[in-house]
């Protein structure tokens, strides 16, 4: 038997070690010097469908630069959008920061967004914002094919995502049909190809016995260890694996050069809620996210594409302008209900 005291001391020590792990590098929180002086106008409530590990640091920078006390509620884009819809006019939120155009579309449809000023909107190309000026894209993510570097040569990869229906890809594909970004790509397919051909593609891939994953990260992991040879994902997950596991991680990205729906670039974006209490701060926040500082943050820290001019990309990324990407307005990607229905028809979703 071990003594009670030894046991508790042991646990306590381990607990302290882990909580202190790196704790020395203090993380600046959104707390200004003295909270008592903060007036109502120095506040901002952000509902973020983007994860704290992605946007937390840049929101803290905003807070530091402006002295505005930012309160953030994090969740998945679907959860946060559903919360906003349930709250309706009584929402405490000033800003919604969404991971994908679908979430922005759902909130737009309920009429919860207020129009943004022209000069804010003008900072990004027209295709990356709402045509009614209700939301604006902040950063972009490319759909790519991630491939295992030992099992596949880039030269073997096709021009267009359609070509993965070829039987030679049998048992080699990984995908995540319930993932929001995948749904956005299928929505793009419906816009470009029409329902019938999209269904045909879905069935063609299914005939190749793809492995179904729960999200982008597990696909990249499975491609890296050779469980599957290629996967349909967003481009930036790969860089997380390269950072933690080193350059010999066995997977790389391939942007489909065909310019079809597989070459989709889509945005994460933000909009101001019409019933928010802090209009001025909300607009400051959105402008800050489009400032060079924030755009550079997204480009270099989260490996995303900046949407404004004059930002340096990570060396591994081809600049947005040089990609032969699908030309589509983001606002056309918001009919997720139709996409879900099609995937159910194909037996891919419950």
């Amino acid at each position, binding site marked *: *038997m071990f003594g*009670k005291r030894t*046991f508790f001391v042991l*646990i306590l020590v*381990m*607990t302290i070690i*882990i*909580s*202190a*792990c*790196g*704790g020395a*590098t203090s*993380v600046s929180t*959104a707390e200004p010097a003295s909270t008592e002086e903060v007036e109502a106008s120095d506040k901002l*409530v952000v509902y973020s469908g983007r*994860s*704290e*590990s992605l946007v937390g640091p840049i929101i803290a920078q905003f807070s530091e630069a402006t002295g505005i006390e930012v*309160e*953030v*509620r*994090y*969740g*998945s884009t*679907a*959860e946060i*959008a*559903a*919360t906003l*819809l*349930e*709250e*309706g006019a*009584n929402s*405490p939120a000033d800003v919604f920061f969404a991971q994908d155009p*679908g979430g922005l*579309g759902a909130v737009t449809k309920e009429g919860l967004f207020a129009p943004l000023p022209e000069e804010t909107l003008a900072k990004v190309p027209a295709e990356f914002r709402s045509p009614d000026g209700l939301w604006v894209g902040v950063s972009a993510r490319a759909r790519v094919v991630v491939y295992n570097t030992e099992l596949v040569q880039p030269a073997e990869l096709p021009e267009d995502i359609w070509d993965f229906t070829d039987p030679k890809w049998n048992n080699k594909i990984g995908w995540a049909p*319930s993932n929001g970004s995948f*749904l956005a790509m299928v929505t793009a397919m419906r816009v470009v190809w029409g329902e019938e051909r999209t269904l045909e593609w879905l069935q063609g891939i299914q005939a190749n016995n793809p*492995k179904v*994953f*729960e999200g982008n*990260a*597990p696909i990249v*992991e*499975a491609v890296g*260890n050779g*469980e599957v040879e290629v996967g349909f994902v967003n481009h930036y*997950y790969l860089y*997380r694996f390269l950072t*933690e596991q080193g350059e010999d991680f066995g997977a790389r990205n391939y942007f489909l050069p065909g310019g079809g729906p597989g070459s989709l670039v889509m945005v994460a974006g933000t909009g101001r809620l019409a019933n928010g209490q802090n209009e001025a701060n909300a607009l400051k926040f959105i402008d800050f996210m489009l400032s060079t500082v924030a755009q550079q943050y997204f480009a270099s820290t989260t490996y995303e594409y900046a949407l404004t001019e004059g930002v340096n990309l990570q060396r591994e990324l081809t600049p947005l302008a040089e990609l032969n990407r699908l030309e589509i307005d983001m606002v056309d990607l918001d009919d*997720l*209900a139709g996409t*879900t*229905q099609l995937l*159910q028809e194909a*037996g891919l*979703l*419950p």
Partner: protein
Amino acid sequence: MTPILWGFSILVVIAILLPITYLIIRVMGAGSDAWQGLLRPQMFETIARTAWLAIAVTTVSAFIAVPIAWLTVRTDLPFRKMWAILTPLPLVIPSYVGGYLFASAFGPRGLLQQLLETLFGVTRLPEIYGFPGAMLVLTLLSYPYILLSTRAALSKLDPSLEEASRSLGYGNWSTFWRVTLPLLRPALGAGSLLVALYVLRDFGVVAIMRYSTFTRAIYVSYTSFDRSQAALLSLVVVLVTLVFLFIETRTLSRTKYFQIGTGQARPPALIQLGYWRLPALLFCVTVVFASLILPSGLLIYWLIRGLRAGEVIPSLGLIAWNSISASAIGAIVILLAAIPVVILIVRRPNKATLLLHRITYSTFALPGVVIALALVFFGANHAPWLYQTFPMLLLAYGILFLPQAMGAVRTTLLQISPNVEEAARSLGRHPVQVFFSVTLPLLKSGLIAGASLVFLTIMKELPATLILAPIGFKTLATSIWSAVSEAFFAQAAAPALLIVLMSSLPMAYFILNEKNVE
């Protein structure tokens, strides 16, 4: 006393009925599409798959949990208390993390395969995805539900019945099957119900193990922002829950589980395992290894790998404190809410209390996000002073976890003879005094089991905490989720390890302070 109990219980019922009311309001907005979607053959298939998974996980969990409960309470198993502390802990591992860890350990090209490749040249393992993977992981994460309720009941069981059985010539083995196990039926039933409903509610494991259950269908509806369809599917879950409840209440029947007549429950003599010691020890080692050591080991690996690559792990002190305090306060509040309801159900068994019993469990299988959105709807629009405050979060935890506390307390109360309470009353004590001086002390093991269950599950709760907590209130579970969803593995590992470590503290406290039986 009854009217006061009913007063409390009705408050509880109102809280439980909030989500159901919300679902009905939402379903009214459902178009014909949603209704037709419900009648697709795929839906029936999904219901059948879900039910099959729930039944399988529950059965296997019982075969793991009951032996461990018996071994750690009744026998001279080596390091008995240590096993008692470690075996309930898998309950704190968040389902999505557990799924992820097991998939990356046992996947076709996972860590196990890489090990086997260097040793034996195995290049690919058979797939664990689908039913086997989902069943394995869910069992390892949820058997503690049965374990904790069974342990509580077992430690209060009067040994004289078993002694009588042995004196009549039955061996340890047949005594266990003929006497002990039947006496544990209410605990086993309550624990199994929690496991079955947990399987219905789970999203993380089934998503990663690629086994489509009903909850996945609900999440898909939310992903396409179709709240009406999500509500319709959720109501189906409530119906399925009622079926499971009907089965469980039937296992109870009208049997009495307390001892009548003279004699007082006392600590039993430990059963000597003899040459069964080694197999019993191996069994515990295997279970703890698979459900706790292996996932923790992988987390440590993630953490070290990340730190080596220069990852910075933010300080977790405040977040850890948030987790602990929310879980502890939640456990106490929920226990307090459970006690009056349980007394009513056990001491006044009639049609009304049976209905009360079923209502309190009816929302237990609903995914957390549904409960959270229901409270968003009522809170934001009708109680803005309460909305997104700590009490609101406690209310959500209450709706989510009340049945866990009730199950453990109820099975213990069933073991306490009402004669004891009546005796105290006949000696002139007020019923309230009787409750505090007689019933409550006797209930201790059930209260501890109930509180532990609630504590451990609040530690890992995610959707309600994300949506309803005061803004900026972070817990270890939300930090893990935030990191793992974007593939920041090292940043997920630190809070995940912390959750396991910190949860072991209260478990250790309770187990080490159990009455020592020698």
